């Protein structure tokens, strides 16, 4: 359905749009994308975003490695992913065009900043001719806009130098897109004035450029259509936009508040986890201490030392850091102290793909230590879910006195989505009780640091400074109950089994099966950040009239109690993962289920479309 507005532009209603802003890393594409996201959020759309940064900090200007992009999916219904492919591509230079045009479907809208298409820039990225002048882009709706020239023109009166004026061209692009999609503009103007409060002339220039982009759309004939995406019907409440790393950090702050413990983050900078450190370092007023150590090992060492002293010890890292921390995780297993290890996974092995995503640390989290060294594993499924996952990891660590691995990944660390902000009063109570009295059961009046709670099998947390409970712990095997060093073979066997039983006994909620019709014969099982694409794929399959059930695991160790039963109810179980089948291996071993593994390790999230095809094939391949 279309309506006409005064300018003669046709307005089309859409239920969802995916826009990708792409430019040189110096072009401010992340900021542009962020602002459009805020406009969409303020308008009430559901949304999901995915930034894509160059691996180099300052790659040479105008080159393919220097391309930075930001993809945003917004809709009038609840969406699950940042979108497979853009409907609209904004390319600020030839490199951005070349790197992204392959993802634009036929008929897609392409908006190009023509000013950068000089012979020199074209040659730099290997274009023999100018694609804007030949017919190589014939399959798309191309809008050629001299964004730099128009921006400089609009800012002429400001007296700003040409170079400074030209830098505001990203706001021109934002203004144009805001016009095309009927976005509210006040928020962006306010944002720009706040951001550049100390440089009012730059603030004004950006606002002017933004308005110039808007007016350009309004006045030129070349844009015949604008689009409306109505607000989504989301659950009632107050929302904000949040990235995974911020949500993780907030989860840790909240856990400190809800447990009443000071938080000590011992860590070392590593992509893509550093933002957790950056964020937490801002919240010292919540009794949060952040310690940037000399290396990964010292980071976790300090966290464990703080836990020993009765604080909530946390360390944050990515896969290579987990490798370095393994020995200390083992010490935490042996000393049975609470500790949260955040692993924001990235492409591996070794240094691998630091800025790209992967979920290939599952087996490292599960088994990557010497000896029998069980550790609970929790994985968030989306950016905003990182908050609840962090609280859950802390709950397990404190209740069971154990290190807990929290497996996020690059896709949700930097991606963002709306978050229904919880009421603080509704957050779980994580308060702990420290040991204060001798507890020996033999009447000796001694303190036994390894006498376990019958229900949780946790040992008492007796912090230094508690009179009468002086005791020694360490990495050597402990005698059951007394905690004295013991080399007794039978005791060792017993303690190994007790530590295992403690982790296996961790209370985790049953999995919920998403099977709207209740008639599915195929079950897709995922974990972590693939929730979005799997969920979106399942919806599409159902739209085609086929049935598929979806289970998404928050707890990888221990598995939910009902998982075996759920798996056994389906004729086919398929497990898509961004690794070579690590969860599938665990499920096969644990439940003797003939799980089908679908794997991809391209450093990118799954596309809903590819999973739709995979699931459709499995469903259609079922015997009648």
């Amino acid at each position, binding site marked *: 359905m279309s309506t006409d507005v005064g300018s003669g532009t046709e307005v089309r209603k859409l239920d969802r749009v995916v826009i990708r802003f792409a430019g040189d890393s110096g072009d401010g594409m992340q900021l542009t994308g962020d602002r459009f996201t805020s406009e969409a959020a303020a308008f009430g759309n559901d949304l999901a975003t995915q930034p894509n940064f160059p691996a180099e900090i300052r790659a040479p200007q105008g080159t393919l490695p220097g391309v930075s992009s930001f993809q945003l999916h917004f809709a009038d219904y609840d969406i699950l992913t940042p979108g497979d492919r853009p409907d609209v591509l904004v390319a600020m230079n030839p490199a951005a065009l070349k790197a992204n045009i392959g993802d634009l479907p036929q008929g897609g809208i392409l908006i190009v900043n023509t000013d950068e298409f000089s012979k020199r820039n074209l040659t730099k990225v290997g274009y023999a001719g100018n694609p804007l002048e030949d017919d190589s882009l014939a399959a798309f709706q191309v809008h050629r806009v001299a964004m730099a020239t128009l921006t400089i023109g609009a800012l002429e009166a400001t007296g700003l130098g040409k170079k400074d004026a030209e830098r505001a061209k990203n706001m021109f692009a934002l203004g144009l897109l805001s016009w095309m999609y009927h976005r509210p503009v006040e928020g962006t103007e306010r944002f720009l004035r706040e951001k550049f409060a100390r440089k009012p002339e730059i603030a004004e220039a950006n606002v002017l450029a933004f308005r110039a982009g808007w007016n350009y759309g309004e006045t030129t004939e070349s844009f015949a259509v604008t689009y409306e995406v109505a607000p989504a019907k989301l659950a009632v409440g107050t*929302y*904000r936009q949040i990235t995974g790393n911020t949500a993780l950090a907030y989860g840790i702050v909240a856990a400190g508040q809800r447990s009443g413990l000071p938080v000590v983050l011992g860590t070392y900078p590593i992509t893509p986890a550093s933002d957790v450190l950056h964020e937490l370092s801002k919240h*010292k007023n*919540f009794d949060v201490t952040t310690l940037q*150590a000399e290396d990964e090992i010292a980071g976790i060492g300090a966290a464990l030392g703080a836990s020993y002293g009765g604080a909530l010890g946390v360390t944050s890292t990515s896969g290579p850091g987990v490798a370095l921390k393994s020995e200390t995780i083992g010490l935490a297993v042996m000393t049975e102290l609470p500790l949260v290890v955040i692993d924001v996974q990235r492409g591996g092995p070794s240094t691998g793909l630091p800025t790209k995503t992967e979920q290939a640390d599952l087996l490292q989290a599960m088994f990557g230590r010497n000896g029998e060294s069980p550790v609970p594993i929790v994985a968030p499924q989306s950016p905003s879910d990182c908050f609840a996952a962090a609280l859950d990891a802390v709950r397990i660590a404190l209740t069971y006195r154990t290190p807990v691995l929290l497996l996020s990944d690059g896709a949700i660390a930097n991606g963002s989505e709306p978050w229904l902000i919880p009421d603080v009063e509704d957050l779980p109570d994580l308060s702990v009780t420290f040991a204060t009295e001798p507890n020996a059961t033999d009447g000796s009046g001694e303190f036994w640091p390894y006498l376990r709670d019958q229900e949780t099998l946790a040992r008492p947390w007796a912090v*230094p400074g508690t009179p009468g409970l*002086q005791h*020694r712990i360490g990495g050597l095997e402990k005698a059951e109950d007394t905690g004295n060093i013991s080399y007794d073979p039978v005791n060792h066997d017993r303690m190994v089994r007790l530590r295992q039983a403690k982790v296996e006994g961790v209370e985790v909620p049953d999995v919920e099966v998403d099977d709207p019709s209740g008639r599915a014969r195929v079950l897709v099982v995922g974990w972590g950040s693939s929730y979005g694409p799997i969920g979106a794929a399942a919806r599409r399959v159902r739209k085609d009239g086929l049935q598929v059930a979806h289970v998404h695991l928050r707890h990888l160790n221990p598995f939910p109690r009902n998982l075996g039963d759920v798996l056994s109810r389906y004729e086919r179980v398929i497990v898509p993962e961004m690794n070579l089948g690590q969860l599938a291996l665990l499920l096969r071993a644990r439940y003797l289920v003939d799980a089908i593994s679908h794997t991809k390790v391209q450093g990118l999230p799954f596309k809903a479309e590819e999973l739709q095809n995979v699931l459709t094939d499995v469903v259609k391949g079922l015997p009648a």
Partner: protein
Amino acid sequence: MTAIDLGLPELGGLAGVPTTDDPQKAKDYKSDQEVRWCPGCGDYVVLNAVQSFLPSLGLKRENIVFVSGIGCSSRFPYYMNTYGMHSIHGRAPAIATGLAVARPDLSVWVVTGDGDALSIGGNHLIHTLRRNVNLKILLFNNRIYGLTKGQYSPTSEAGKVTKSTPAGSLDHPFNPVSLALGAEASFVGRAIDSDRKGLTDVLRQAAEHRGSALVEIYQNCPIFNDGAFDVLKEADEAEKRIIPLVDGKPITFGASGEFAVVREGFGLRVAPTSEVSASDVVVHDASDEHLAFALSRLSTQDLSHTVTGVFRKASRPTYDDSARAQVEEAKAAKQADLASLLHGRDTWTVVG
């Protein structure tokens, strides 16, 4: 005011640690665990010295923590009736750092050896010293790996023939005092296991120092490196070799003070006292970093001279005090309002 001057009052090393008026004895500090070092091991002497010395601090025993790494000496915490953690190889300073940051009411001691502190844990040691965390680090130096049965260590002399180096080791050794000073340590001392008085004196000064205190203790391993420090233990040899430091006093030594330390070029040398004028004898000043380093170089691997006592004692803000001060400042400046943190600046509301 410089960036690191947080205007903190000058505190003693034990400020904030609760004390007791109840009399304490050495035996109060002995745990019920049987001590399992080899007979004749220097570790026994150090353990006894520490257990005898601690009561004089008058601290509540439960507020003392010993953290160790791996190695013979790292068994130490098991024998102390205090809190203790026998951690993993080389990492004790890191673990103790987290503990010290979280708990200003604890007196935290690290027990480590030459392999633990200088080889596998070298990185943590230097960074802990640089940060000046309020920890007392006792480095038991026996110049050998004991627990793994006799391989050369980072303080073994070059050419040392051991099980792992039948043709002689190739490594040049560390001078632990020079290393610590180079790592910006605010307190560095050295003592010999057999010298109870000298050891106790250095331990006391270390305990009273606010910040990282590194105490190197020459410790004999009778099993794998017996007699490594014997020349310092035979009375007539010791007199010629050991240079004890007393802050503010001219540095002379020998049975009747017949040797003196004087300047030479950028460093120091030993001269017969009779041949130099009294004004040329160097007066020890533990606040002078240049002197401290020069003194550390006077101690040679072959022990022809060994300087003992406190090389350096300098006042500098500690990492843990500063970290806590930042948290306290933040708390005073801004209320911990979780709901407002979670909401942030931009929210929108969906109504039914």
